[in-house]
């Protein structure tokens, strides 16, 4: 469907003609997010430059009965920000102002298009930072993080996005503007901030977000250890967590991933002869880090680490982390396409589930490599394939499903931080029964009775159709 010139003109009257993108080439730039298996070209894209413009756009689309999808930087990995030919896409990247930082109460008020890493940069002069750190933090926006309840390596100690958002001003699909939460974090009524975070853009648009900020740790030490089996590395992970030490991050890369990193411009000096590399980061006061490091090192040796290396200078730590955070990019060199999957299992089941993933890869003749948040049991199996080969693509999708089923069978879940979006929607019945799914549909309709905000995501449509209880419209 090409956009009606009437709608285009009405949107242009709000934001200016240059911020309404209708040309085919322009629209195609928004056809996918970070997940290559799903693509969809929006009817048009409109880029508001202010809070007031967002509200005006939503009101206009409500009047015209047009569906819409809000997008941040498009780094999502679940096809959550895709819009189809009948749907308007609203990228919020122009709403990128940090409105205030309160160093005493450790709060920041920001617009939704602020890039995650920029907030920490702005807070740094006050000795503060924003804790959730998705691997895409140099590009992803905090509005997108709010929609997905994004995580990151340091969420092991500091929690995910939901633990760091205290107040949100939102515009609902009917154009109503309301504020949820309060600067301290206590809510005015039920915890609607908690409900809104992770609602994948289906409850409304965040216009203004108040976040917590954390004091920059006085000391940070990163330990790099190598193991001759993934099993031994993951057993060490459980032992570290059970010891009472709470590392800031506990990240595991397998041999294939290490090889890809070390053969790329992101080479971090990881040992390429090991089956698994474990990064353990400790942070806190100098004394606590000094006290915890020997405890962790002893555990690493107990589980037969081949080597343990410590990095303390900002430069050496940055290098180690660059390898981890750019691992997906490095893997891009060795495969035409890759699917970064996301699932969570109880930490104690990690060794077994990793064996299962290897077996699934072998059976489907696919290279599946692992780089993940081991401390949280949050797996990121990376399935290497070629989008142009239909058979490879089919096998990649089959392997994805089998991995999800195995993780659910182990007591886990289908996504830990990437969201359901389009990609995981068919897996939702693996973990929720019809009653629970139907309740989610009803909750969505509380916020958006006409279901125009990010339509068709998260909950399978048939679950919504079967909803019969008497919620109030």
């Amino acid at each position, binding site marked *: 469907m090409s956009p009606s010139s009437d709608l285009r003109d009405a949107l242009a009257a709000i934001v200016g003609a240059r911020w309404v993108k209708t040309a085919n080439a322009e629209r195609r730039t928004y056809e996918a997010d970070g997940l290559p298996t799903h693509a969809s070209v929006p009817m048009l894209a409109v880029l508001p430059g202010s809070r007031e413009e967002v509200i005006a756009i939503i009101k206009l689309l409500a009047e015209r009965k047009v569906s819409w999808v809000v997008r941040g930087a498009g780094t999502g990995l679940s096809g959550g920000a895709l819009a189809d030919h009948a749907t308007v896409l609203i990228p919020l990247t122009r709403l990128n102002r940090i409105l205030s930082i309160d160093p*005493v*109460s450790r709060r920041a008020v920001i617009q939704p298009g602020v890039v995650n890493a920029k907030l920490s940069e702005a807070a740094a002069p006050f*000795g503060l930072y924003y804790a959730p750190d998705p691997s895409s933090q140099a590009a992803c926006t905090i509005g997108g993080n709010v929609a*997905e309840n994004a*995580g990151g390596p340091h969420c092991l100690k500091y*929690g995910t996005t*939901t*633990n760091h958002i205290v107040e949100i001003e939102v515009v609902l699909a009917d154009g109503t*503007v*309301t*504020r*949820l939460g309060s*600067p*301290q*974090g*206590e*809510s*005015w*009524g*039920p915890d*609607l901030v*908690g409900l809104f*975070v*992770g609602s994948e853009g289906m409850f409304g648009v965040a216009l203004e977000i108040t976040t917590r900020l954390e*004091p920059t*740790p006085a000391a940070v030490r990163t330990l790099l250890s190598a193991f001759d089996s993934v099993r031994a590395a993951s057993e060490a992970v459980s032992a570290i967590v*059970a*010891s*009472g030490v*709470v590392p800031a991050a506990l990240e595991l890369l397998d041999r294939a991933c290490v090889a890809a990193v070390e053969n790329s411009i992101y080479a971090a000096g990881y040992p390429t002869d090991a089956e698994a590399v474990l990064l353990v980061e400790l942070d*806190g*006061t100098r*004394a*606590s880090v*000094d*006290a*915890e490091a020997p405890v962790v090192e002893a555990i690493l040796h107990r589980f037969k680490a081949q080597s343990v290396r410590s990095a303390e200078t900002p430069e050496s730590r940055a290098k180690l982390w660059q390898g981890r955070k750019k691992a997906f990019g490095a893997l891009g060199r060795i495969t035409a396409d890759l699917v970064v999957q996301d699932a*969570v299992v*109880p*930490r*104690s089941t990690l060794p077994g589930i990793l064996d299962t993933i290897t077996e699934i890869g072998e059976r489907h003749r696919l290279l599946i490599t692992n780089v993940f*948040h081991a401390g949280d*049991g*949050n797996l990121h199996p990376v399935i290497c394939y070629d989008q142009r080969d239909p058979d490879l693509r089919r096998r990649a999708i089959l392997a994805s499903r089998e991995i999800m089923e195995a993780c659910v069978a182990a007591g*886990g879940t289908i*996504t830990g*931080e*990437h969201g*359901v979006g389009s990609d995981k929607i068919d897996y939702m019945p693996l973990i*929720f*029964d019809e009653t629970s799914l139907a309740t*989610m549909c*009803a*909750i969505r309709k*509380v*916020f958006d009775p006409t279901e125009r905000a990010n339509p068709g995501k*998260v*909950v399978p449509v048939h679950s919504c159709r079967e909803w019969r209880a008497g*919620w*109030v419209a």
Partner: protein
Amino acid sequence: MSNAIHRALAAQLGDAVTLDPSGLPRVAPASTDALATALGVANEHQWRIRIEGNGTWMPADAPADLTVTTRRLDRITSIASADLVATVQSGVAIGTLAQSLAAHKAWLALDPPGAPERSIGSVLATATPGPARYRFGTVRDHVLGTTVVTGDGRVVRAGGSVVKNVAGYDLTKLQIGGFGAFGVIADVNLRLRALPAARLLLTATGALDPLFHAGRALVDAAIDATTIELLSPGVTNRADWMLIVELAGTEAGVDAELARAAALAPVLRPSPEAQAGVTNALAQAFLEGAISLRAGALPPSLPALADAVESQLGPGRMSLGVGGGGFRWAGNAAVPDLLEFRRSLAEQEIPLTIERAPWPIRSAVGHFGAFREGVGTLTTRLRAVFDPSNILTAPLEGQRDG
């Protein structure tokens, strides 16, 4: 009516149905299915329901046709110490839970007010954290998933039992601090912590202002504490205010933080002998007086808030979250004074929640009172999803607002 309700429920649930001391039918289901049956029958007949835990926190005085108590939902289903996750039924007493977890070298890093017999379901439904919220967050930050039975007897599951999970909307958040308006919590998956190797309580006594500044000096220096809290004289039964700071971690880490804390705030003294007394005082103090309330105030506004509450409601017992904000008061107050106090806080953008009060007060004032613009409509619709016949007695809004 009571006898008819008793007979109708007893036919389905047998000896789970009794009469409470006032002659009201009381059902004590021992499973999620039995709870769903009870609520389904009640919904069919439009019986108004009073939800109870173990009867130690909220007065059991809401007008109703039937009481549903979670006291027989008292099983600790599993403690996965390697995963630091526990699954428990909602009627499990917090004291019992703490003991069981300690045997697994784990703890739930929440220190809610109330008796050890208080149920975990009560802690969730009222969202009452304690001073450890400074390090570990409030109740919402410890809950991974819930199973809830709605007012019409549906069983709804949300979240899961792993520490990271973004599958589906986070309905669990709605249950925490929902005061039972969104169903009856049947079981809960909790995030645990490994017990620290060392813990040490530091205390100082004196006037509010200097202790507040001493506490803030620790916060500004990012002292690694689990708790930085100011307790009013009524809490500890002393003449002065008390600043409590708890350090936890490795032995060496605690020793080093002790040295830093002592340099920053020389009034602080290690008081290991006071640990049991302070813990007990914190648990008991907010059960005294008819009302317990909390306010979402940021740290800089706390001293003025303490003055305001003292002049408007009386000194009562106060706990001030010097580190990350948050304020609790318990005492006695009349409805008009509570309404006026809430209004004065609202002008400063500080929300006030009634955590515990007799029915005449909580129904008049409301747990939350008047909502912000837009929030009331959403809340009403959300209630209708979870309780279509409106049989769950939960006065979120007051009758005498505005």
